[in-house]
Every structure is written in C-alpha cells, then in structure tokens.
C-alpha cells in the first residue's frame, strides 16, 4: 500500500484530476484517456447543480464522458459501459480521502474503498442520508465498489428495450432532487446501508443490460433475468426481486432461469477495486471478499480458496513483462520472502519499504533506491513494471538454482505391441513428432530420446555420428539396465538426421509385430533411468494393459457388483503401489509425465494416470483409437503438447497475508513441502486450486494480499520467477461475501473436491456432498434476506451465484461423477477425472455447459462477411426449444463438436456438407470438406471455433435428430422419470450418442417422436428446482421440528 496519506491516484487529481492517474490506471483506462480535457468542466455540474438527467450517476471521477453523454442518446456509449470503472478504481483501497479536495472527489475516491463501504458505522452526515433511501433504483451507485450504478444510464437508449426506458428515467427524479446535497459534502457516501435494499421496487434495471440482449432476442419475452456481468454488486432489491427467478413453482417457465450463455463471466469488481491486481486469468478467488472471522467462514458453505493458472496464455499485448534485477538481486521481504509488488509501500524518503504481506520494514538496496515525490510515490514508478503491474516475471540469479538450468527434454515411450500397430497410432505419433521437431522449444539445447516396448524393451542409440539409429533390445525385465547410458538421450540439433531417420522408419519397423504383451512398468523404469540425470517431459503412448514385469495390472475391470458398495472407489485408485512410488520418483527427478492411452479395452487409466497426476502432467484418452478417425485429434493434441511454451523443473508457492493460510491444494502435482507445489513441467493449460483457512479467529487487517510465485526454467535456459499479486478486501458481512463470489472459481474448486472424493468414497457420496454444500450455501443466503422480504417459496441467490446450481448439477452429471456403472466406462471416467483436475476455469465451465449454436441460416446466406462470425455464433440455451428440426446445430464442449442434423433439415444442406453419402448412417460418415461454398463455410466455422480453444482438438461427430430422440428417451428411462436433471440428460445423451460407435438398435422405431418431444421439453426444467426444493424442504423440516418441540 501507498503511504496512507496518499491515495496515490486520487490525491493528485485534486490538482489535475486526470492526467496524474495515467501511470497507474493507464493501461486499463487508456480508452478513456482522451476525455480528460473535458474534466474540469464537470466540476461545476457536480458541486453546484447536479441536475441534468441520469448522467449524474456516472461516477464523478470520470465526469467528462458522463457530461457528454448527458442526453441519454447514449447509444455510442452503451458499448463501453465499463470505462468508468478502471479510472474510478485508480484509487487504491482503504485510503481515507485527503482533505481539501474538490467536493466531488471524495465520493469518487471512496467509491473504491470496499471494506468501509459495508461497515455499518458511517461518517455520512445524517441529513443527506435520510432522504436517500427513497431513490430506490439507485440507492448505491456511489457506494458500490463496482460503480455499476452508471450503467443504467447507458441503457435506456438501447434499441431493443424501449419498454425499459420509463423505468430508468423515472428513477432519477427522486435522486436528482437531493443530488446536490448528497454529492456536495465530502463525506463518503459509501455506507448506504444495506437496509435500503428493501425499498427497492423491482427495478428493471438489472436485466436490461445490453450484453444479454442477444440471448433475449433468441427468446423474445423470455428475458432471462440475468443481471449485468459487472453488476454483481447491485443492490439487494434487484437481487432478490428482479434478478431472482423468484418463485420456482413446479410449473414455472424454465426460460426465466439463468443460463451462462456468455460462458465464463469473471466478476470484475475484484479488478476494479484493486486495479493493480493480476488478471483473473492467472488467479481467481472463490470470493473476492475475504471473511474476517471463523464464524463467517463457517457460514460460507462454499469452498473458500483460489484457482491459479500461473502460465495462462495472455492475449497479444498483455504479456507478462520480464524484469532483470541483474546486480541488485530480486527485491524480497527479509522475513516472509514476498517479492516486491505494486502493493508494497515506500517510506522514509524511499530508503525503506514495507512488505504488504507481513508488514516488515525492509531496506531498499542502493541500486534500487529512488526518491519519493510529494505524494509518497516513487518518482521512477513508470519505469518499474513490478511496482505497477500485478503480474511480472523476474529473471532469477544463480541463487535460485540448485543446478544449471536444464535443457528442454522430450522422451518418448511408445508401445509397439500388436494393438498399437493395428490402430495406426505409431504412424500418427511418429509423423507428428517428426513434423514438430522444428518447433520444439529451446532450439539449440533441446534433447530427445525414444524407447519402444512390447514384451521387450528397445533402446535406440542416436548418436550424431551415426547415420542410422541403432536398436538395442533388452529382454531382462526384472533387472532393468540401460545400455549405452550416454547416447540414448541426444541433442536434437546435433542428431537431427538420426532422429528423423528413426521417426521415418518407426512405423514400418514394427508393422509385422505380433507381440501382444506390454512390459510397461519395466520400460517406464528404463526411461526413468535414462532421464533421471536431467528431468524433462516423458510422453507415454500406451495401447494395452501392462501385462509383464513390474507394475503389471490385472483386468480388474469394471465390475457392476462393486458399484454402490464401500469398495467402489478402489476401482478408481491405482491398483499397484508401484505407480505411486514411480510417480514420486519421477517428480523427484523433475520428470513430468503425459499419458496417451488408446485402447479399446480396459487399460486401467486409474493406475496409469497416477503417473501424470503426481508429476503435473495430463492424461489424453482416445478410446478405440483408429488413425483415420481420431488421427487428426491425436496429431493436434500431441503437437500442442510438444510445442506449447513449457516451464521446466518448476515449483510454485502461494503466499498470503497474516492470519490466513492455504490449507489444502488440489490438482495434478505433488507437494514438495507443506505449501510448495512441485511441477516438473507446467504449461498454460494447467490450473491448480487451493483452499484457504483462517488461522486467527478474527482478522484485523482491511486487506489481504495473495502472491503466487512460480520459479521455473524457461525453455531458453533462463531461470525465472513469475509473480502474480492480488489484493482482496476483508469483510465482516456474509452478504458481501456472497455478492463478491466467483462462480467459476467455486465450481472449479467443487469439481476438484468432488473428484478427489470419488477416490475415497462412492460416486453417490461425492455428488451428495456437492449438492449438500450448494444447498447449504443457498439456504444460508436465503436466511440472510428471507425475513425482511417475505420471500415465501422462492429461491433467492446472489447475482454472482446465479449459475451455481446449474453448474453444480452439470458437475454431478459430468463424466467423472455421473451415474453409476452403466453411465460411463471406468477408463473414461478416470481419464475425465484426471483431465478435469487440471482444467483452467474457463475450459471447465465450457465443458460443463457447452455451447450450442445454430448455423444453417449462416450457411444458407448468400454471402456473409467474415467478420460477423461473432454474431453468428450466438449461444443457445441447452433446452429442447433451442433445437428446431429444420436446423443444423453445433454443440461444442471444448473437447468435441457434435453437429446435429434436424430431421427436416433441407436435404440440400446435408448433401452439400456430407457429399454423396448424406443419407447414410451418420455415425459412419466423417465430415470432410466438399467442393462447395457451404461445406467450406462449415469448415471455416469449425476452424474458428477450434482456434478459439486450441488446447484440445474437437473432432466433429455427426448426429441426426431421430437417433437423438431415441437416445434421449433411453436415458430418460434409465433415470427416474422425475429426475430434475433433464438438462443434463440432454447433455449426457449428446455425449453418449457420440460415444456409441455402433447404435445398433437405431432401427427399432420403438420411440415415437411425440414422446421424444415430451421428454425433450421437460429438459427445460432446470437444476435450480432441485436446490430450491431442497432448500424449502429443509426450511419446512426445520419448521416442523420447531413446532414439534414446542
């Protein structure tokens, strides 16, 4: 923090309101900068009159745009409703406004003061306060940390919502009456107490946000009451009345239920309050309001923690700056080892700095010294990215190395038994590796090596002096040794020719192999021996169950009888301790394992995946791999695995302020010590979750800081430390915690917790505990407000958690957790579990709630410019009504595409897309580009979709409507008819359709379309029903209990 007297951005503004905020908020508010000249003019309207219509509500600190937009012809403005935020947020939190600022300033600076704003004791002069509550619609704009108040002003002119206009324009009138008196006193208007809420008439404000409009257009009149993305911290009335679906009676219109059609919505208030925080793509807290006491934590029934994706891909222009403190050494706190970050404060004329995490006063090294200006900021602030940016990367000196930085190293362990040969896997792998040789990171130093195995282990000597690789066969599996320990792992650039020759000949070398055995364990040990000197990345291509040598696995299979018993979970944990031990050894020697499994039979992914789990790797599973069908997927995913930027021999630690502590960690890694994650190879597609616990019963600080530090070796051979810093306010109010919640992070944590739970107990238990926690949380929230609002049989939930139930249900219907024996194959379940344990938030949410888009209209349009791609791709809710039998749809969950052909889709389209065999059974048709415009366009769409999510390759699966219904109904019967989870059945049916390679019973016309339709319509009923009913149930039970006891 800056010295307390200097709200470092807000103080200067007293003189020159806007220019000074440049360096701080500059990056974010740049789109806003052009307006400053207008600023001074606004002073007058504000202090004096405060009159003209809604514009007043725009945050005073950004007066110029507001003034200009005064006539609510705000159409040009609606597309950037956010600009006010960054500049308002320029003030660091919890700073008292300096005295003597222009009258409009204090509110502005105070707006971003989160913690005080919710404390009941206020310094607000009572006079203005008293009249305030009347302005129902805008009770809080100034107090609202996210400054969401202003947004409504932009809204009225939005073309699609003429009806909303009156509501908005009415609202201002009471407010404007007191505007003057309200704004004039420099007192912080922040604490408009929570009670106001109850005055709020159901403001239409909350659901007329422009973003949502396209969804609503899709369902005119259905207008899902989704509040604005950023208006999470809206006043309660809008929460409890307007944006609540309110009563969810059995016959409720499902369309009013909120659906995450915009994908992942990152709550922005976090960033607005603390503009110097790292971007949420790196670190997301499950609630950005940290509870101050144990009792609050116990009433927050959701997981409290963070999801960290340290190497998330940054968009162009936002890369993390690399800083080299060559001579100074990296500046860190002496005591808690925190890295210097934007929240440290410099004191004593710049000679000392105070650590924001442990508040120890440290000396500033001579080379790092800079004078402070009058406001206490360092004069060289703008040349020091580490003092203004939440994410930076330091170049580490030799003291951060235990050995010279390792070269990037790729080692391949390839199964060449008969099943691997037959599936064509070897050919695809060899080709892909060969084509990626040029793009492997760390060019001159990259090392590479290969081992193949069936019942024996084959080593390859690839010394650069050879012209051809030499193969050495070791058949003694019990006592593995490495022949020629030096030449098995070679420098790629030196031995390039040998490696290429090897890869070219690999497929043909084994094409006549008839060996069915797989000595996987011994081969793994051999690879370990070869790699243990350096570490690196080990890619395992396994095509059958390990059957020989150490680590051989039994066909323990997927036993129906085991499900539902206490032994169920044993199927999901490694059978042989060899795998855990091996995983531990691999991590110890900095070897990261990625497992590629291909078998059509049981391969015990639970055991194999353990290797990836504890070494920070990943499991790729291609059931029944056939090179002509799945080849493209493997090619793409392997290529990405090989070429994406990888951090080697990394360790990660997350520090946080005094009084709180990270107590448990969840994801694919191994803990090196209580809080140190060992990550032998980590990349942008991996995220890690952790849970917080309070150590002290009461936190006294106003703000808590988090710092993620990832120490790694970059592919270029430099040792680096990537540091992400974030701050979050400490609150005393449970409601505030709920309002600042981040559904994405919560779901991600839930997902990991539930999957971990399946390893120790039944699937049923894992789902139940997940459900129970969601219900408890919603009940707690309900108890907060139910009394004063007389909500009756309604479900209420905070705006920020509107999708929680949906995602919760989606989660319990996801592959690792769903159903029982029949619903997913064991291997598939385990593989999905390993994958979901590592997925970043965004991808997880997309997997849980995939996107559905209709494309036939676009395909038919005579000519469409390329740039309106975004418009075409509007997501539809996953309900029956979205699917028109005349349409063509793409369903995309990030891992696969399902292309759905309506029954009445014009045959031309099908013919154009599928070529001559369009009438054939779709599961046997593969989608290839045909020589016509329509097909090319479809391919272009698929390509674009893939580009937007490159971590996995989405194979298109074709499905025709009838088969669809059939499947659907079968599932419908399988589940109890009253199951509220229709939506998810819809989803899982999709996946099941996909997975069934042979829908043999397709021909049986047992299911009439009508029943199908019916079942389909019921899909609309959403998850929320479950939760709400159970909420009510509990409430009732409590009531009956009470009466009983009375």
């Amino acid at each position, binding site marked *: 923090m800056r010295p307390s007297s200097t709200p470092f951005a807000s103080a200067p503004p007293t003189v020159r309101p806007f220019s000074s905020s440049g360096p701080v908020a500059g990056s974010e508010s740049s789109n806003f900068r052009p307006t400053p000249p207008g600023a001074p003019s606004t002073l007058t309207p504000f202090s004096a009159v405060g009159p003209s219509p809604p514009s007043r509500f725009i945050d005073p600190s950004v007066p110029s745009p507001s003034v200009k937009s005064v006539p609510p012809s705000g159409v040009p403005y609606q597309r950037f409703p956010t600009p006010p935020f960054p500049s308002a947020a320029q003030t660091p939190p919890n700073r008292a406004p300096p005295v003597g600022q222009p009258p409009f300033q204090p509110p502005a600076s105070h707006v971003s003061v989160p913690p005080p704003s919710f404390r009941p004791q206020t310094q607000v002069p009572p006079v203005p306060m008293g009249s305030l509550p009347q302005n129902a619609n805008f009770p809080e704009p100034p107090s609202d940390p996210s400054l969401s108040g202003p947004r409504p002003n932009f809204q009225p002119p939005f073309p699609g919502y003429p009806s909303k206009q009156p509501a908005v324009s009415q609202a201002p009138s009471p407010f404007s009456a007191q505007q003057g008196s309200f704004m004039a006193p420099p007192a912080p208007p922040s604490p408009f107490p929570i009670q106001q809420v109850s005055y709020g008439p159901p403001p239409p404000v909350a659901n007329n946000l422009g973003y949502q409009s396209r969804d609503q257009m899709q369902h005119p009149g259905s207008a899902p009451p989704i509040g604005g993305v950023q208006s999470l911290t809206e006043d309660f009335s809008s929460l409890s009345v307007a944006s609540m679906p309110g009563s969810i009676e059995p016959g409720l219109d499902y369309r009013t239920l909120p659906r995450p059609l915009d994908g992942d919505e990152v709550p922005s208030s976090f960033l607005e309050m603390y503009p110097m925080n790292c971007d949420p793509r790196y670190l997301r807290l499950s609630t950005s309001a940290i509870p101050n006491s144990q009792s609050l934590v116990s009433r927050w029934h959701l997981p409290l923690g963070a999801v960290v994706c340290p190497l998330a891909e940054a968009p162009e222009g936002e890369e993390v700056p690399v800083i080299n403190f060559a001579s100074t050494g990296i500046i860190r706190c002496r005591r808690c080892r925190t890295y210097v970050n934007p929240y440290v404060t410099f004191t004593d004329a710049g000679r000392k700095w105070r650590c924001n995490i442990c508040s120890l006063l440290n000396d500033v090294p001579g080379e790092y010294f800079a004078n402070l200006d009058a406001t206490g900021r360092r004069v060289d602030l703008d040349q020091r990215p580490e003092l203004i940016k939440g994410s930076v990367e330091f170049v580490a000196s030799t003291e951060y190395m235990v050995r010279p930085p390792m070269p990037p190293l790729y080692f391949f362990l390839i199964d060449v038994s008969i099943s691997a040969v037959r599936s064509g896997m070897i050919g695809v792998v060899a080709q892909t590796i060969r084509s990626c040789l040029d793009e492997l990171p760390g060019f001159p130093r990259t090392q590479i090596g290969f081992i193949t195995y069936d019942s024996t282990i084959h080593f390859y000597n690839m010394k650069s002096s050879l012209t051809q690789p030499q193969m050495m066969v070791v058949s003694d599996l019990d006592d593995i040794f490495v022949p020629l320990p030096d030449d098995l792992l070679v420098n790629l650039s030196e031995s390039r020719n040998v490696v290429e020759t090897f890869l070219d000949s690999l497929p043909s070398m084994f094409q006549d192999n008839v060996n069915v055995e797989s000595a996987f364990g011994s081969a793994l040990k051999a690879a370990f021996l070869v790699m243990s000197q350096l570490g690196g990345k080990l890619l395992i291509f396994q095509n059958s169950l390990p059957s020989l040598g150490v680590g051989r696995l039994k066909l323990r299979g997927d036993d129906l009888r085991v499900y539902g018993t206490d032994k169920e979970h044993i199927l999901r944990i490694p059978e042989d*301790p060899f795998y*855990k*031990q091996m*995983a*531990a*050894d691999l991590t*110890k020697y900095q070897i990261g394992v990625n497992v590629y499994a291909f078998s059509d039979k049981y391969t015990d992914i639970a055991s194999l995946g*353990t290797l990836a789990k*504890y070494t920070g790797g990943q499991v790729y599973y291609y059931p029944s791999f056939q090179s002509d069908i799945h080849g493209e997927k493997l090619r793409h995913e392997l290529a990405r695995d090989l070429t994406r930027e990888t951090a080697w021999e990394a360790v990660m630690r997350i520090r946080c302020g005094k009084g709180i502590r990270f107590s*448990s960690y969840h994801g694919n890694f*191994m*803990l*090196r*010590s*209580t809080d*140190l994650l060992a990550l032998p190879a980590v990349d942008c597609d991996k995220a890690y979750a952790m849970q917080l616990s309070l150590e002290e019963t009461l936190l006294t600080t106003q703000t808590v800081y988090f710092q993620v530090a990832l120490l790694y070796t970059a592919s270029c051979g430099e040792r680096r430390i990537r540091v992400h810093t974030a701050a979050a306010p400490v609150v005393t109010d449970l409601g505030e915690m709920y309002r600042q919640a981040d559904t994405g992070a919560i779901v991600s944590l839930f997902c990991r917790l539930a999957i971990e739970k399946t390893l120790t107990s039944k699937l049923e238990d894992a789902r139940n505990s997940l459900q129970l926690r969601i219900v408890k949380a919603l009940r707690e929230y309900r108890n907060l407000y139910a009394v004063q609002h007389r909500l009756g049989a309604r479900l209420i939930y905070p705006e920020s958690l509107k999708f929680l139930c949906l995602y919760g249900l989606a989660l319990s219907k996801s592959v690792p957790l769903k159903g029982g024996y029949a619903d997913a194959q064991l291997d598939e379940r385990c593989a999905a579990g390993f994958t979901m344990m590592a997925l970043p938030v965004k991808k997880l949410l997309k997997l849980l709630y995939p996107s559905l888009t209709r494309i036939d209209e676009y395909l038919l349009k005579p000519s469409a410019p390329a740039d309106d791609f975004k418009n075409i791709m509007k997501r539809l809710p996953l309900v029956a009504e979205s699917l028109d039998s005349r349409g063509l749809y793409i369903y995309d969950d990030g891992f696969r595409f399902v292309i759905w052909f309506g029954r009445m889709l014009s045959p031309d389209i099908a013919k154009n897309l599928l070529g001559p065999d369009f009438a054939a059974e779709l599961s046997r048709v593969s989608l290839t580009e045909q020589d016509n415009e329509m097909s090319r366009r479809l391919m272009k769409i698929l390509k674009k979709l893939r580009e937007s999510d490159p971590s996995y390759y989405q194979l298109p699966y074709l499905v025709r409507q009838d088969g669809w219904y059939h499947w659907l109904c079968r599932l419908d019967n399988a589940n109890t008819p009253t199951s509220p989870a229709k939506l998810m059945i819809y989803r899982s049916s999709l996946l099941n359709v996909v997975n069934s390679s042979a829908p043999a019973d397709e021909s049986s016309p047992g299911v009439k379309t009508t029943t199908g339709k019916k079942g389909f319509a019921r899909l609309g009923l959403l998850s929320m029903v479950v939760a709400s009913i159970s909420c009510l149930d509990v409430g009732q039970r409590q009531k009956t209990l009470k009466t009983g006891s009375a």
Partner: protein
Amino acid sequence: MAWDLIFWVLCFFINIALLASSFYQLLSLSDLEADHLNPFEAATRINSIVLPEFLLQGFFCLSFLLTWHWFMFISTLPITVYHLMLYSNRKHLLDVTEIFRDLNTEKKYRFVKLAVYLLLFTVVLFRLLSASIFFFFAWKFEELDIRTSLFY
C-alpha cells in the same frame, strides 16, 4: 525366578525399542511439516521401520500370551489388532504422494501409539523392578518372611 526377570528385561528393551521407533517416526513427521525433511526422505525413513515395528509389537504381544500374562496381553492387543488391520488393508506404509494430506492423521495415530507405549512402559518398568527385587532380595524375604513379621 530368573526366567521371570529375564523375561521382563526383554520386555523392557522391546518396549524401549517400540517407544524409540514411534518417537522417531513422529520426529520425522514433524520435521517434514517444518520443511526440514523432504517428503521422499521422510517417507523412506518411516516406511523402512514400519514393518520391523509391527513385527516387534506382534512378538511383544504374543510373548505375553505365551507367558500367560493376561493383563499385559490384553493391554497390548488393541495395537496389535490395529496393526494387523492396517497391514491387511495395505495402509501401513506412508503414501509419499499424498503425505501432506495424511500428515495430521498420521501424526495423531503415532501420538496415540506413543502414549500407549509409554503407559505400557511404566507397567513394564514396574514389573521389571518387582521381578528384580524379588530375584535379588528373595533370600531376605525367606529369612524375614514378611507374613510372619506382619503378624507378630
């Protein structure tokens, strides 16, 4: 008489060994917690002495049964049964990959074991003393004959 003494001396040493092993495991775990030891080393250290301890404890318990020391047998039985249970479930060894997750329960388990061993130790010590007193001073008792001196 001499056999009794020898038996209790043996028990005494066995008990000390058990105590030491428990203590050592506990120490390794707290070292691990304080980051003075990495999980690999801690797990190897502890796992290497788990089985010997189990065997020793089993022998300890069995010897009481064979020598007809009912009370001692009953008091050592719970631990033996617990050990058997752990072993049959293959949970007796520390899982190095999840060591931090299990750290607290493992520590608690070893604390309890340490306490039980300490209790046993006091009993064994007492029995050892009484046996040795009986052995070394038996002739005095014969001469004095406590019963007679009590009554007269």
